[in-house]
């Protein structure tokens, strides 16, 4: 699914050493590392928003930015400009093939799919309520449903558990678990609470000052006291 060869990430100057990675189809991967180690940069590079410093990266066999229609990204910070009475469903519908020109057409088939996704992430009770009145945890589950509406092959989540209380975290992780059971897609998740979600993941990528390592279990990254496992 993702292949990196001698890849060096960074904005204008390198922030990671050169590394190689091979991630298989439909694997669920946790990304761990200190702030500024290059975790978010990795996701942005995959989307083609940032150029690589050197080396190469292929996602589903393509260069970054070429197949973004198959990748869903949930950023750490975002700006949502919904009108006061618009609901989470409006947000999800607006993203359905949102890159295609023409008038938006919300067919019965699409609405049924959105209803299924809302059920899948456990947002049925509030998906019809005005989005701006929802709590942070509720909004994040709507974002999950939104990320799935275009049937992506790869999901990129940047710190989705940040700012959530323990209860909301549990709900979010339960939603991820259900997605893992019902959908065939790869997932890369950055989190500072990896210990809470580790049991649902297949492997980990550890960004540290000495290099970027791929580990089958979270145990292998324990040497970094920061990880907190």
């Amino acid at each position: 699914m993702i292949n990196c060869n001698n890849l060096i990430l960074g904005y204008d100057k390198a922030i990671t050493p050169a590394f190689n990675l091979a991630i298989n189809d439909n694997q669920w991967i946790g990304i761990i590392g200190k702030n500024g180690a290059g975790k978010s940069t990795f996701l942005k590079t995959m989307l083609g928003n940032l150029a690589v410093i050197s080396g190469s990266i292929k996602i589903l066999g393509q260069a970054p930015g070429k197949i973004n229609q198959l990748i869903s990204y949930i950023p750490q910070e975002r700006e949502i400009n919904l009108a006061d009475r618009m609901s989470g469903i409006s947000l999800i519908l607006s993203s359905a093939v949102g890159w295609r020109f023409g008038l938006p057409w919300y067919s019965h088939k699409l609405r049924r799919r959105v209803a299924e996704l809302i059920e899948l992430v456990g947002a049925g009770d509030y998906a019809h309520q005005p989005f701006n009145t929802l709590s942070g945890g509720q909004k994040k589950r709507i974002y999950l449903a939104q990320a799935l509406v275009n049937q992506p092959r790869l999901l990129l989540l940047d710190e989705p558990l940040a700012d959530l209380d323990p209860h909301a975290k549990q709900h979010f992780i339960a939603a991820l678990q259900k997605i893992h059971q019902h959908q065939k897609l790869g997932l890369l998740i950055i989190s500072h609470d990896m210990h809470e979600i580790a049991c649902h993941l297949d492997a980990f990528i550890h960004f540290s000052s000495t290099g970027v390592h791929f580990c089958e279990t979270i145990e292998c990254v324990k040497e970094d006291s920061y990880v907190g496992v």
Partner: protein
Amino acid sequence: MWAYSFMQNALLAGLMVAVVCGVVSVFVILRRTGFAAHALGHMSLTGAAGAALLGFPSLLGQLLLNSLAAVVMGLLGDKVKKNDLAVGVVLTFVLGLGAYFLFLFQNNYAGSVMSILFGNIFAVSNSQLWGLLILGISVLALLMIISRPLIFASIDPVVAASRNVPLRLLSVIFFLILAVTVSMACQVVGVLLVFVLLIIPGAIGMQWGESIYGIVALSVMSAVAAVVVALYVSYQFDLPASFCITMLLCAGYFIGLIKNYVVKS
């Protein structure tokens, strides 16, 4: 009263401007480009003054200058949040030019300044009507073509960018649409009150509507209703039409505010 040709022209011009403004105003609010709408209205004054200097129709001058300003603003501020700075820079430059144009032609031009500032819907000619029709159809057709990515990019710009939605191109096209709409609306309510048709209909739509189509429909209906009733009141009571449009739309907005307050309490 509708038998008079000037009233028929006023009604047709008002309806065309109301429909276009009703649709565009929803995007003005979603994209938080109220300042740009306001600024383009002010820049229209420079466009009209420049056209008067060169002996062109004022609508042509407004269209050309507003479109140029729109492209610059769109290129400078493609992210919804970044617009204000880009708009402010372009606005001050263009207003400076406007002051100079007015200085150059103060004797010949001063008389028509009032009609540009406040509009004169009862003086719309047949040729202006055709101009408004062509511009209106162009704006709506362009909006239909870009509406899906424009809605996505306006509501959720960061995720839209991650999906390769061309934010900068959409920003430029939307500012051009806004520039043309402002130039049209200036004929009816003038540059000072253009804001009213580009903000309040959309705001009323958002007070009552829950989906994007519902909001657009309500916005258009409120703009059309305000213009038609304002023309009638203006004729019957000899009041300025732009004043009546403004008061009616503000009243509509306050009714929505009261409704929201009652629902909440």
